[in-house]
């Protein structure tokens, strides 16, 4: 049993420059599976929820799952769990590419990083040892330079991940980047920066065996067949992703008046088509790049030629909102450069863009002056957008304020600017509008990591299978999606696999790989267990039911094709209460003792 696991975790102490290998108990593999499950289990046991996220006591947990490194398609993600400096709560974050298999090839299922380095360093993990290597020459260097440096020192066959200047400067939404993919949201890069850790490298050759090779191989073939049918259809969602990436088109969202524009004051961006992927195909040499083992290859690499040439992997659809419509930027070159800056500095494009949009509105309203900023930060001003990103990463001038994110900016600026600081729990909104989609409103307000779009009924609401505006029945649907996505993130599945693969297939793959005998109920229960454990941690960290809220702008009317529509505050609050009931929580959103017992949850920090 458990053949697909290494069955060991690696604990690295940066302060002592020591490490230790520990067995993962069978019960933990059985009840938490892997990936997000392992990360949440260990973090909630070991980190005091009350500490500051940039305190040495915080930990970074990189976790793979049982299907990582196998031939099953779309299990390339590494999960990262830590306490977020943006939300002060627990965060789970994912990065595709090739890192997960490289980590697992060193003989560990997860790596827990503790303490802090005394000087800027990177860490190398091999099956035999862990090395702590000072790298003062990488101070202030971009992500690409850092990763290339580490590969040059340790070998091209390393999997690497690094922070840029934003992480070193503790920008609250700094990211960690691994080649063409990113641990984007929640400031994990700042946590790494607070540990003086410039990069991590994994170098190993250990493979993955499975419990039942014959059955596993059959299930893998079936999964590939499902994805082939999807990608053969150029009009299916995965068909579009495989040809154009996630930026295949914003027009449908625009038609539904659900494309957040001008800091969420509008739901329609007239020139959205100017910044979708087809625009990049005309401007750059483009090619597709896949994550490990994936047949969808949604990654788009664009190389811009010429004197100021550069190359960038993206932008994704989400960035076409945050650094596009939300800032009223319809210039694809500006957007590509902005995206590239975030790649090099290591910053979350969503939080960065949404924060700049907030600053643009503050400037428009006179809450921030030209003297404060140093230039005209107008909506639609591409040059100003790029300049703001630079200052943000460097924490220079107004950048020092921008680097704090919308929640802290609103606190400092005052004047009720929190009204339009588009975040929930401090996490800036992803590319979806709570004003227009009630399922999104609920999941943004209640997600443990803040305004998380990965756990919403986006497709169903947009395509009309579910009524967009009505709150009826959304509580149960959203809770169900949250649990399901959690369960998938233990394997560790890409979010998109769920668009085509039925849940039974995920479970068959898990069982054939590990010898487990899970059914759908078991699997979803695991997702629910993890959700509740996160919730308990957040409550102890001070995130009460008051944080299950949205900024006031979300309850104001917005123009939809000549009409005014809005999210009704009373209906929203009733929906949240219904959600608590569905989850077996009390009226303050605290998991009841009955629920905790059913899910087998302890409270280690009490």
């Amino acid at each position: 049993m458990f053949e697909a696991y290494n069955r060991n975790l690696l604990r690295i102490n940066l302060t002592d420059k020591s490490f230790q290998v520990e067995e993962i108990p069978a019960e933990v593999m059985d009840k938490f599976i892997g990936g997000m499950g392992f990360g949440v289990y260990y973090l909630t046991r070991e980190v005091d929820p009350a500490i500051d996220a940039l305190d040495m006591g915080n930990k970074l947990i990189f976790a793979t799952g049982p299907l990582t490194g196998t031939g099953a398609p779309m299990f390339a993600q590494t999960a990262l769990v830590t306490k977020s400096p943006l939300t002060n709560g627990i965060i789970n974050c994912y990065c595709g590419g090739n890192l997960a298999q490289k980590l697992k090839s060193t003989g560990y299922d997860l790596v827990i990083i503790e303490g802090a380095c005394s000087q800027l360093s990177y860490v190398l993990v091999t099956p035999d040892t862990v090395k702590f290597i000072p790298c003062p020459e990488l101070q202030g260097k971009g992500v690409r330079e850092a990763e290339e440096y580490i590969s040059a020192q340790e070998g091209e066959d390393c999997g690497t991940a690094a922070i840029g200047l934003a992480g070193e400067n503790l920008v609250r939404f700094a990211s960690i980047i691994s080649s063409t993919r990113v641990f984007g949201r929640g400031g994990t890069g700042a946590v790494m920066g607070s540990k003086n850790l410039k990069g991590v490298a994994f170098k190993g050759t250990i493979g993955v065996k499975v419990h039942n090779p014959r059955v596993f191989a059959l299930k893998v073939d079936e999964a590939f067949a499902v994805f082939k049918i999807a990608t053969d259809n150029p009009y299916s969602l995965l068909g579009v992703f495989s040809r154009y990436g996630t930026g295949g088109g914003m027009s449908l969202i625009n038609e539904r008046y659900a494309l957040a524009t001008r800091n969420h004051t509008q739901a329609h961006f007239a020139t959205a088509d100017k910044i979708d992927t087809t625009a990049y195909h005309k401007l750059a040499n483009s090619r597709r790049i896949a994550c490990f083992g994936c047949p969808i290859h949604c990654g788009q690499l664009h190389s811009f030629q010429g004197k100021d040439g550069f190359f960038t992997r993206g932008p994704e659809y989400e960035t076409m909102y945050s650094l596009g419509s939300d800032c009223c930027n319809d210039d694809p070159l500006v957007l590509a450069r902005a995206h590239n800056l975030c790649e090099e500095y290591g910053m979350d494009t969503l939080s960065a863009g949404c924060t700049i949009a907030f600053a643009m509105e503050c400037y428009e309203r006179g809450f921030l002056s030209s003297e404060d900023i140093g230039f005209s930060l107008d909506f639609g001003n591409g040059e100003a957008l790029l300049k703001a990103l630079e200052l943000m990463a460097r924490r220079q001038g107004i950048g020092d304020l921008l680097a704090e994110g919308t929640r802290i900016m609103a606190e400092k600026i005052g004047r009720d600017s929190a009204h339009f600081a588009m975040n929930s729990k401090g996490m800036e909104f992803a590319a979806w509008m709570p004003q227009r989609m009630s399922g999104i409103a609920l999941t943004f307000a209640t997600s443990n990591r803040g305004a998380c779009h990965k756990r919403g009924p986006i497709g169903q609401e947009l395509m009309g299978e579910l009524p967009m505006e009505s709150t009826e029945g959304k509580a149960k649907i959203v809770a169900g999606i949250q649990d399901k996505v959690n369960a998938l993130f233990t394997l560790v599945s890409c979010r998109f696999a769920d668009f085509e693969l039925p849940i039974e297939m995920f479970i068959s793959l898990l069982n054939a790989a590990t010898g487990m005998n899970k059914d759908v109920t078991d699997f979803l229960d695991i997702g629910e267990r993890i959700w509740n454990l996160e919730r308990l941690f957040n409550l102890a960290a001070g995130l009460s039911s008051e944080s299950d809220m949205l900024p006031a702008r979300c309850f104001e009317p917005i123009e939809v094709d000549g009409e005014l529509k809005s999210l009704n505050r009373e209906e929203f609050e009733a929906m949240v209460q219904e959600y608590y009931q569905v989850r077996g929580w009390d009226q303050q959103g605290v998991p009841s003792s009955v629920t905790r017992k059913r899910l087998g949850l302890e409270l280690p920090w009490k």
Partner: protein
Amino acid sequence: MLIYDSKSCTECQACRLKCSFVKETEYNPAKSRLSIKGKWPQMPVLKVCRQCQNPLCVKACPVSALSQEEQRIISIDYGLCSDCKLCVQACPFEAVQTCAGKIYICDTCKGEYPCTEVCSTEAISKKG
């Protein structure tokens, strides 16, 4: 014969996973007979045995562990191989893979090339 179209290759490595699973019942790119060298944004390169007419790997082997059989396929006698890696260095196509003390050379899987079955873009395909 294996055909490679680097323009279509997305570097997903599904081919490598299929190879190691078919040959070793293990998912391990390091034991795959194919490797892909990609340094984005440049085009990737596939490294795999081409069944040369005059195989330099066979010539380089000091203990005659390598021989060329029918269809020009290279055969390895693991009993004789001392893992000196001279064949690895000799191959101009970097097609001899090595992992944990063993060398691996593609034997075409009887001309079936199961690796080509999992390629989602036909970057790798078989002919003849």
